[in-house]
C-alpha cells in the first residue's frame, strides 16, 4: 500500500521505533514565542539541561507586542515581563531572537516562511496551535504545549504516534471574490470543529493547486479549527518559486538536491485515507461565522440559523448559547448585521497578498463613519513591503488605522481589544467568546469581506459593492 504525503514526511523523521512505545520523531525546526516558552526554559534550568540545537530554533515576540509606539518599553508590566523573560532566556541559551523593532520580527507563522526556514518535507513545531500554517509547504507542522516545548528544546525530538489520514479535495475554480479563507470556513462548517480530531488533513485538488503560497497558508492555518493538529499541501512549482532566494533557503547544489527530494513528496496513487471530504470550488461563496465556534459559519447570503431547527441536541444548545452571546436573532440576514470594528491581520490573513486584496477594494473610498478598521501586518517585512507598494496610504486615506506587526486583536493580549458588546468582522481564526476582548463578538471573514464590510458597516461581500454601486 502506498503512503500519503504526511506519512512520508513522518517516516523520514522517525529516530526510534519500538513496539509498545510512541515513535521518537526528529524536529527540524522549533519556533518559539514569549507566551508558551518561559515555563519550558525554567524547566531546563531546574534540571540543568541545555538547548540541544539552538541552530534549529528561532524565537520572536508576537503575542504581547503593542502595534503602536513599538520602540518604547511595553506599558503593560505583565506583558513586558514576559517579553523580557524571552530575551533573557534566548540570550542565556544561545537562541536567535527577532525582537520588537527587528526587521525579522513578526507573527511566528509569518516569519518562518518569509525567512525560508519553513521548507517542504520538514517537521516543524511551536507552542502555538496555528503551527499548522507551515503545512502549506508540505511540512508536517503542528502545535505543542509548554511541556513539549521543553522536550524539544532539550532533545530536538518528540514522542509521537502516527496520525490518521484525511483528505480534503477541492476541485474546480473558485468564483471571483471567493478566497482561501472562504474555502477553509466552508470545510470547517462541513466537518465541524471536531471533524479532524486525530487526523492530519491533506488539502488537494485543482482549486488547491491553483492557490498561491499565501492562500495555501490561510487554509493550512485553520486546520486546527477543524480539529486537526496538522494540515498540509504537496509542494510544487509554486512552493519552490516562493522559496528560491529566501535567506535560509538552500543555495546552489544544495538547492538542486533539495528540490529533487521535495519533488518526491506526493501522496502515492494507491495510498488510502481514513476519511475523504470533497468540495466543489464553483459552489462556494464568501463565508462568515455567526456563532462562537469556527464551525458555526454560513454563506454570507444566508440568515442567522434558528436553533429550534437543529436536530443534534449538543449543536442546538451550542447555537442557543452562541446567539445569546452574539446578540443575534434567528432569521436575521447575515448581510444586515452591523459591525463596529474590522480587523485585518493575524497568522491567518496578515500576509502581503491579504493586504493587497483589501487595499484594492478600499482604494479611493472611505471606511463607514461608524466603523473602525485596524490593519495589522503579520510581520515587519510585510509592513515594509506594503509601504513600498503604497498600500499603507490606501488604508490611511480610507480612514483605517495602519499599525505595527504582531498578533494584535486576534487574541487581544496587547491593547488591541474589543470592548464588551462590540462586534467585529475579523480575518483571524477564532470567534470564541471573549477571544478579542471581554464580551467582544467576532465574525470570521476573508480579507475581501473585511474590506467590503468596512466600507458599508454591515457584513458585506465584495460583489455586493458592485451591485450597490458603492
Amino acid at each position: 500500500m502506498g503512503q500519503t504525503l504526511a506519512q512520508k514526511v513522518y517516516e523520514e523523521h522517525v529516530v526510534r521505533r519500538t513496539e509498545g512505545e510512541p515513535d521518537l520523531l526528529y524536529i527540524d525546526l522549533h519556533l518559539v514565542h514569549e507566551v508558551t516558552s518561559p515555563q519550558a526554559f525554567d524547566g531546563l534550568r531546574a534540571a540543568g539541561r541545555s538547548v540541544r540545537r539552538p541552530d534549529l530554533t528561532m524565537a520572536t515576540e508576537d503575542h504581547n507586542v503593542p502595534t503602536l509606539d513599538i520602540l518604547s518599553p511595553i506599558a503593560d508590566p505583565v506583558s513586558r515581563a514576559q517579553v523580557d523573560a524571552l530575551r533573557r532566556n534566548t540570550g542565556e541559551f544561545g537562541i536567535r531572537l527577532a525582537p520588537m523593532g527587528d526587521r525579522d520580527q513578526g507573527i511566528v507563522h509569518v516569519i518562518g516562511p518569509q525567512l525560508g526556514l519553513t521548507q517542504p518535507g520538514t517537521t516543524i513545531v511551536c507552542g502555538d496551535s496555528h503551527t499548522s500554517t507551515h503545512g502549506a509547504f508540505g511540512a508536517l507542522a503542528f502545535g505543542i504545549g509548554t511541556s513539549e516545548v521543553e522536550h524539544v528544546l532539550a532533545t530536538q525530538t518528540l514522542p509521537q504516534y502516527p496520525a490518521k489520514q484525511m483528505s480534503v479535495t477541492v476541485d474546480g475554480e473558485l468564483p471571483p471574490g471567493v478566497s482561501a479563507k472562504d474555502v477553509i470556513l466552508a470545510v470547517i462548517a462541513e466537518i465541524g470543529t471536531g471533524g479532524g480530531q486525530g487526523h492530519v488533513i491533506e488539502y488537494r485538488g485543482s482549486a488547491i493547486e491553483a492557490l498561491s503560497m499565501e492562500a495555501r497558508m490561510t487554509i493550512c492555518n485553520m486546520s486546527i479549527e477543524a480539529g486537526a493538529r496538522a494540515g498540509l499541501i504537496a509542494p510544487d512549482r509554486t512552493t519552490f518559486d516562493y522559496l528560491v532566494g529566501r535567506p535560509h533557503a538552500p543555495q546552489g547544489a544544495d538547492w538542486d538536491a533539495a528540490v529533487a527530494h521535495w519533488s518526491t513528496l506526493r501522496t502515492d496513487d494507491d495510498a488510502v485515507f481514513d476519511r475523504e471530504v470533497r468540495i466543489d470550488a464553483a459552489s462556494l461563496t464568501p463565508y462568515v461565522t455567526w456563532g462562537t465556534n469556527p464551525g458555526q459559519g454560513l454563506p454570507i447570503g444566508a440568515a442567522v440559523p434558528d436553533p429550534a431547527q437543529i436536530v443534534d441536541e449538543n449543536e442546538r444548545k451550542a447555537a442557543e448559547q452562541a446567539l445569546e452571546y452574539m446578540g443575534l436573532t434567528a432569521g436575521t440576514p447575515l448581510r444586515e448585521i452591523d459591525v463596529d470594528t474590522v480587523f485585518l491581520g493575524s497568522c491567518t490573513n496578515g500576509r502581503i497578498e491579504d493586504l493587497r486584496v483589501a487595499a484594492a477594494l478600499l482604494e479611493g473610498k472611505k471606511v463607514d463613519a461608524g466603523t473602525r478598521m485596524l490593519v495589522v501586518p503579520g510581520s515587519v517585512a510585510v509592513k515594509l513591503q506594503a509601504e513600498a507598494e503604497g498600500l499603507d496610504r490606501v488604508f490611511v486615506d480610507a480612514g483605517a488605522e495602519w499599525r505595527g506587526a504582531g498578533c494584535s486583536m486576534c487574541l487581544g493580549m496587547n491593547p488591541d481589544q474589543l470592548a464588551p458588546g462590540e462586534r467585529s468582522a475579523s480575518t483571524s481564526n477564532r470567534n470564541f467568546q471573549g477571544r478579542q476582548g471581554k464580551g467582544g463578538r467576532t465574525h470570521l471573514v476573508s480579507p475581501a469581506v473585511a474590506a467590503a464590510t468596512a466600507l458599508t458597516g454591515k457584513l458585506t461581500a465584495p460583489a455586493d459593492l458592485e451591485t450597490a454601486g458603492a
Partner: protein
Amino acid sequence: MDAFTTHTGTAAPLRRSNVDTDQIIPAEYLKRITRTGFEDGLFVAWRRNEPDFVLNQPQYVNASILVAGPDFGTGSSREHANWALLDGGFRVVISSRFADIFRNNSTKAGLLTVVLPEADVEALWAAIEADPALPVTVDLQTEQVTYGSTTVPFVIDPYTRWRLLEGLDDVGLTERHLDDITAFESRRPAWKPASLPVR
C-alpha cells in the same frame, strides 16, 4: 509530574460542547511566566457573568472531576488550560471527545482525560445532578469509572497509562536514547534549514 493511580471525588456537570481553551483560561492570564497559580483564570468569564454557572453552585464548588460535553479543549495549544484545571482542584476531565492538543498536554501535566461514550456521559450527568455529593472514582489501574452501583470501563493507550501511573518525566525517558538521536542527526541532509548563522 505527580503520579496518577486512582482518584475519588465529587463531579461537576458542565453541559456544554466545544468548551474552548479561551473559556478554560482567557489569554490575559497567559502573560504570567509561572507554572502554577492559574486558578483565578479558570472559566473566569462564565464564573463572573453567569450566576448559575455550574462552578458557581455551592454543591459543585469542591468538585475534582469535570464532566463536559463533546469537543472539550478545542482551540489554542496553551498548557495553561491544563494547569488552570489542576490549580482549580481538578484531577480528571471526562468527555466524549477531546481536542488533540489539550488531551496530549494533559498527559504531560498529570491531568487525566477520560473518554466515555456520549450515553455514558449523559448517565453520569444525570447521576451527579441528582446527587451532587455522589462520590465518583476514576481508577487508572483498572481503567474504570465507578459511581453508585455503576461501573464504566474506559480505554487509554498503555504507554501513556504507564507514564501517568509512574509519574514519569518524558524528557528523562527520551534522554535514554541520545545515541539514537545523535545517529539520526549524522544522517540529516546538509540542505535542511537552520536559523543560525543569521542570513
